[in-house]
């Protein structure tokens, strides 16, 4: 049950053991479960620390306090008392029962494969990326859910991305989705008015997503879409750009990697059971816990450009930045996208049932990212829009062709996106988060650039044909895009 109150307040659970229970403890009659409340108990104190989902626009203090709990949850090592493990459930995003329970709680390939989020997301700091050693194995979790081989037939091996600036990424995606859907509405109403088919280019914040054709009867033809889902929702997270929101991703990841199941997806409303994963613990993750995690992730500072003191670096980086444009890298790795509004609504507008969305709650919360100190440093254009320096375009591209298919190692499509299609990797922070590539197996920027086929081929060839000095300058530039936690 959510609770609506003005000003976005919430309550903390009293951490006091009732006197009677203390009496039982002293009498030695207490059940082992009651020792959970001791400060040294082997459970995550932060779980359940926020009892109600926040509502309304949070003040800076409230937001920072909520995010602090989120950070604790992000860094917590979940235990059996918390409900880690999912003996009866697979890693699938849709609650799916396993055919046979598995003995081990942790399992490298099919998961759960991590004790905490920060166990992988830690480079250069908590919330960051991970080395190859932290790779995960993405599979739908339906057939062969218990795969124990690294063979790409069963899963796609993926590197751990950093989460810095993710709140702005999601806000960009929301604004762009609205823009694309407005084009669709426009095409439909024009088609209705004129009585003939209307074909319009799909464009959002200057990024092109193909064309949409509308018929006068209300049908739309989606054959010419490019790099976006057919419902015109930009899903900006994960390597292929198939996860809708931080909230959805958080719930997915908590289940896949830790076997911690959020009630808003795995609870009785959708599964008939409060303990869907059958580990003996019900109500493992509350909606408020998820809100705290989302608040922290959404308010992580953006990566920045920082030029080291070393001789010649500044000039090289400047030349490299020019080359970055000359080669054509900026066609996809756009240096910035403009963002109208920094108000992050949680739950958000584009999630469907299974992740709380704004229609499912009495009142949503708003995390005003503009309140964060780091947000004040963000550049703005003359219209007052924040220029988010993501070096990406939130669009999916084919990354292989007949000659260059180093990035075509995967065998499985993921959530309707073909094997060789990936979302443009945001390059902000690339200087802090080697190795590179969706499998995290390219140890140099030079190598990953040369691996760009398909839509990136032209820029890649321009780089390959450039002189060593030019290439070096480009690397110098890219290495200035760092995360300063």
């Amino acid at each position, binding site marked *: *049950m959510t609770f*609506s109150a003005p000003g976005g307040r919430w309550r903390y659970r009293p951490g006091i053991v009732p006197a*009677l229970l203390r*009496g*039982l403890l002293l*009498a030695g*009659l*207490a*059940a082992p*479960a009651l020792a959970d409340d001791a400060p040294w108990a082997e459970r995550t104190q932060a779980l359940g620390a926020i009892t109600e989902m926040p509502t309304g626009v949070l003040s800076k203090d409230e937001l920072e306090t909520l995010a602090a709990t989120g950070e604790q949850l992000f860094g917590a090592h979940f235990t059996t008392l918390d409900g880690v493990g999912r003996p009866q459930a697979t890693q*699938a*995003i*849709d*609650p*799916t029962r396993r055919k046979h329970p598995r003995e081990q709680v942790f399992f490298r390939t099919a998961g759960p494969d991590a004790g905490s989020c920060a166990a992988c997301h830690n480079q250069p700091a908590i919330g960051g990326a991970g080395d190859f050693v932290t790779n995960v194995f993405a599979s*739908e979790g*339906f057939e062969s859910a218990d795969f124990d081989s690294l063979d790409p037939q069963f899963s796609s091996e993926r590197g751990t991305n950093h989460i810095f600036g993710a709140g702005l990424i999601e806000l960009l995606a929301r604004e762009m989705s609205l823009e694309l859907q407005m084009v*669709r*509405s426009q095409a*439909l109403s024009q088609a*209705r008015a004129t009585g003939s088919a209307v074909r319009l280019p799909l464009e959002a914040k200057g990024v092109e997503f193909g064309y949409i054709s509308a018929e006068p*009867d*209300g*049908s*739309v*033809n*989606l*054959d010419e879409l490019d790099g976006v*889902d*057919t*419902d015109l*929702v930009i899903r900006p997270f994960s390597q292929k750009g198939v996860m*809708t929101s931080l909230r959805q991703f958080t719930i997915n990841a908590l289940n896949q990697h830790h076997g911690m199941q959020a009630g808003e*997806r795995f609870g*009785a*409303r*959708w*599964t*008939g*059971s*409060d*303990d869907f994963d059958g580990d*003996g613990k*019900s109500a493992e993750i509350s909606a408020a816990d998820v809100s705290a995690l989302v608040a922290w992730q959404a308010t992580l500072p953006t990566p920045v450009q920082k030029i080291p003191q070393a001789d010649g670096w500044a000039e090289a980086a400047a030349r490299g930045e020019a080359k970055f444009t000359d080669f054509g890298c900026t066609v996809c790795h756009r240096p910035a996208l403009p963002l109208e509004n920094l108000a992050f609504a949680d739950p958000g507008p584009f999630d*469907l*049932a*299974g992740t709380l969305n704004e*229609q*499912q*709650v*009495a*009142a949503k919360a708003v995390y005003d990212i503009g309140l964060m100190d780091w947000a004040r440093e963000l550049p703005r254009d003359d219209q007052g829009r924040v220029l988010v320096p993501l070096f990406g375009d939130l669009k999916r591209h084919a990354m292989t062709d007949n000659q260059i298919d180093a990035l075509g190692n995967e065998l499985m499509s993921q*959530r*309707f996106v073909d094997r060789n299609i990936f979302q443009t990797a945001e390059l902000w922070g690339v200087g802090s988060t080697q190795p590179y590539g969706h499998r995290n197996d390219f140890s140099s920027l030079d190598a990953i650039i040369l691996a760009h086929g398909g839509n990136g081929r032209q820029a890649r060839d321009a780089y390959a044909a450039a002189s060593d000095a030019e290439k070096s300058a480009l690397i110098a530039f890219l290495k200035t895009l760092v995360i300063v936690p």
Partner: protein
Amino acid sequence: MTKLRSLAAFGALWLSALGQCASAQTAFTADTPIFKEEAASAGITQSYTGGWEFFVGGGAASFDCNGDRRPDLLIAGGAGPAKFFVNESPTGGELAFRPLDTGLKEKDLTGVLGAYPLDIDNDRHMDLVLLRLGRNLVLKGGPDCRFEKANRSFAIDGGRAWSTGMSATWEKGNRFPTIAIGNYVDRSAPGTPFGTCEPNQLLRPRSGETPDYSDPMTLEPGYCALSLLFTDWNRTGQPDLRITNDRQYYRGGEEQLWQMSQGRPPRLYTASQGWQRLTVWGMGIAETDFDADGLPEYALTSMGDTKLQKLDEEAGEDRPTYRDIAFEKGATAHRPYTGGDPKPSTGWHSEFADFNNDTKTDLFIAKGNVQAMPDFASYDPDNLLLGGYDDIFHEKGMEAGIALDTRGRGAVVEDFNMDGMLDLLVVNREHPASLFRNLGAATDWGYRPLGNWIKIELDNGKINPAAVGSLISVRTGTRTQTRRIQIGGGHASGRAGFVHVGLGVSERATIRVQWPDGEWSHPYRVFANQHVRIIRGEANARYWYPVAQ
């Protein structure tokens, strides 16, 4: 010492209470959809009235007649005239209908027991078959909800019988549909009404460029049919004809299954073939397939308990032997679930649908006393049996708000305001029809949307454009749900239009279509909460959008 003992006792109590609290299974935990009855404000004013001949019937047909894809309505009036209503509901908003004057004579529109939509001449405008007491009427549909009598042009002899049911299918290789008409009591036969059931009628099209039904055949014996359904019960790709009959008036009768063969007269399945003798007060047939194995289950309403028939695995392949699983699934619905009337129910229209979008099939049953039968319940509210995660049906009619004191007959389950949540029209005997809008799930602050959904419209091309007889298979994760596009069944009520499937928490689905000729399509990948159009032969599905509000 006593203090310690009392503490120990408390501790024991505390522990046992903890043990009970740890139980994770709850009885019914999914959303209960809340329905708001708004026929009057929506402009739907129609009562099904009349004498004995109109104790049965009372149906409606739902279909789009003006090309905006919002489902319009024809509601039978019995002794009073049937009425047409054009749907003007805003998307996601309150239901709104405008009465339509088709210009048809009142004498043609009175005496209507029910109706079914069917595109007989393949011109992509829904035609209508009006089941009447006396001459059945076929109306050819045109653009902008124009209807004209077509008995002559289609060479359909409406007959003089008391017609109560209908079903249609396109038999292999035929350009036009085969139509089965169910007839009830022959009022002119000696000894009527007992043991004097009229034969049923099978209208097979003659070959030619236009519909020509001038060579009808009778299906004898008739046992006072109240519902018919062409159904592929055994995965042969050839639908047979199931008929549910009213034991009140037949003598020596039973439920019937006619084996349809191309170019040959139908033959009844016999007991030696496995068809077991079942006698019910058969009012309506509903079809579903709980486990998507291609072998459908059927709900048969009756007086007293509803039958839920599942093909008996032990009977051997291709034997139409059914066992009743209503009791084990909690779907007997044999008595009113509220109101305190202890006498048995009378069930009429039944229909399987997912009313709360949780992927589990639900069952709606319209209920109501025949007229004033003293041995049966008089306050007999309609049932909303919601399928639970425990694979058992849970009665939620009361909470849902449909437990009215009306005598329900036919019904239409349809999403009238294009918001993905199924609404409900119930035709009532001697009472205004009820129109229920699905508001979603109740919370302490209002209503929240239900689970995800998908709605699918098929385009099969020149012949049978609406793909009657096709199978839609929707896969989400490890779950497959199927829907068969059928015209028939229910109680004198039929529908055409988008097919609704609930998707629960799935954000996307993969759809495959088995077209009426048996050919399977490739998989279509779609996102949830969309109206999808699948046009045969096209690589990708299209989405359709209602006018934004």
